[in-house]
């Protein structure tokens, strides 16, 4: 009872800090400190043969090498001529994936949310069915699409080849694999957008629609002038979360096409680490990934502030 008695006599602020200590200890060991370490590692030279993977301090040379395309990393197949620096390929894959997946997930999520917003018999079960993909393990999501687009087992590979969209083995082709990964992600995560949009829809005062109908507004006008502005803040927050999540893409790629075929930023960190043992370069890529996400979050937050100011 001694420590508890001691706590009783402390001020509210001290009590707060004591209770926060475990959380911040965990975050410091797993997040804050490793992030700083990643940055300091990225300023060292690679040592692929020596027992310790890091050499002397070389400043920002790793970043320069990455941005100019001189970094020695396992080459990927996205650009067969090897003309594009690998970092740019990874950046392109990651950004294109994030933008396209969030765009489609928002549109499909909107459709699902509108369906779930209706009152009908069996609504609970339709909602379960729509949420289930969101709750399944990444490896199983990957397995489903890996099997579907596998030339031996899957029907989708044959079908897409017969209509001339994909090649004979889509999971070894960079463009085809990118589309497969994109579809798999949309299948899984549209439900997340749907749930957040649904929460926004259900918080709208139904009386507003009655007023609009009496004033002669068409359904489209009701949507444009009531629904959209009122759910915009919730929608932007949901898109922010999804964008951050999409930019981390790793597991889905690793378990379907492989990190060499579709190099995302996170993939590049792992291939640099495991295939070439270039720890310092891997750290530089990892830190750049964090920076890119940080910049994107900032842009989002600025635009979020603007819309909130515009609405109120």
């Amino acid at each position, binding site marked *: 009872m001694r420590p508890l008695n001691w706590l009783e006599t402390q001020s509210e602020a001290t009590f707060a800090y004591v209770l926060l200590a475990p959380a911040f200890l965990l975050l410091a060991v797993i997040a804050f400190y490793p992030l700083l370490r990643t940055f300091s590692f990225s300023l060292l030279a690679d040592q692929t043969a020596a027992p310790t993977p890091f050499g002397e301090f070389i400043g920002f040379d790793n970043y320069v090498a990455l941005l100019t395309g001189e970094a020695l990393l396992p080459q990927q197949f996205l650009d067969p001529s090897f003309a594009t620096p690998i970092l740019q390929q990874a950046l392109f894959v990651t950004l294109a994936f994030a933008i396209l997946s969030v765009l489609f997930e928002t549109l499909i999520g909107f459709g699902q949310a509108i369906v779930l917003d209706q009152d009908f018999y069996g609504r609970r079960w339709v909602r379960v069915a729509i949420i289930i993909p969101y*709750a399944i393990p990444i490896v199983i999501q990957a397995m489903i699409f890996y099997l579907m687009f596998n030339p031996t087992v899957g029907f989708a590979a044959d079908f897409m080849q017969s209509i001339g969209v994909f090649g004979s083995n889509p999971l070894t082709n960079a463009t085809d694999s990118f589309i497969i990964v994109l579809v798999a992600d949309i299948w899984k995560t549209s439900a997340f957008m749907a749930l957040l949009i649904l*929460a926004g829809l259900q918080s709208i005062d139904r009386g507003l629609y009655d007023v609009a109908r009496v004033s002669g507004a068409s359904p489209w006008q009701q949507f444009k002038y009531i629904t959209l502005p009122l759910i915009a803040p919730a929608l932007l927050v949901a898109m922010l979360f999804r964008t951050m999540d999409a930019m981390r893409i790793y597991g889905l790629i690793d378990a379907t096409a492989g990190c060499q075929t579709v190099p995302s930023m996170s993939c590049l960190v792992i291939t640099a680490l495991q295939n070439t043992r270039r720890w310092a370069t891997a750290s530089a890529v990892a830190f750049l990934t964090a920076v890119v996400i940080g910049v994107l979050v900032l842009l989002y937050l600025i635009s979020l502030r603007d819309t909130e100011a515009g609405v109120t």
Partner: protein
Amino acid sequence: MSEKDQADLAAMEKTDEPDLDRGMVEAWAAKMISNPDRAYRATFYVATIFFLVTTLFPFYWLLMVALTPRNRLSSVGVLTPGGFNPGAFVEIFTTLPFHRYIFNSFLIAVVATVIVLFVASLAGYVFGRLRFRAKNVLLLSVLVTSFFPPAAFFVPLNRLFNRNIDILRPLMQDGSLYNTPYAIFIPLSALYLPLSIFILMTFYSQIPDGLEDAARVEGTTRLGALFRIIVPLSAPGVATAGVLTFITVYNEYFFSSLMTDGRPQSWAPMLEGILRFQGEFEVLFNLMAAASIVAVLPVAILVIVAQEKIVSGLTAGAVKE
């Protein structure tokens, strides 16, 4: 597809239509114009069926692959299996100790959930109910950690977990945390902590101050008031945070795939088990599918049972910013 379905639907509903000489499509169009609500209703049903099919079909097809015997795998149809071999669901446990992988995953997820609930309860209480100067700064720093990708933390953590630490030598064989469940649940507890802090913060802040004050007057300690009054009264919130943490840890890929060598006795989680069916000589597609179905059942059941909790947790976590 949608137009045909709607036409069929209209044909079924065409009973009270007086003009019999109209074609089916025109009749449908006339009906929809005179009664737009019915048109919305029809579109709604088509959309519902579309979403149900697109979300559930992949699971159905996975079952079809699992039921197909190994030598007939090239003849799996879109809707039918290439044979009937339920033995695949037994084979996954005999070819590999897949139950051990599932057990590892469960253990990691349960331990991480317990750690997260305890630590996030303390932090959620502070952020939800106490007032002090640095509160907003600290809350922001919790939020910031959920922004960064796990890859940004991975290089130092990989080094840390592979290092031989003398103090750990009595506990681990070689004194390093690699190939132990610690290397997975410690990072995952930290990474999924912010979500639970936000959920619990919301729930704890809604308990009336009077209840806590009454308990304090009765002589409960501050911590006693938290664990005897606030936490039990916020049971739905704690359950929400617990269910979401369990599911996200069970589903995680990044650390789960990188912190062990993939052998079941090295505490490799379920995902390594599924990927191991990509054998050395032959890819056992039907076993991969069967293992996936077995591994997805726990979360599927959890979603059906705790649907409301998951929905409220996801929305609370995101709306809180």
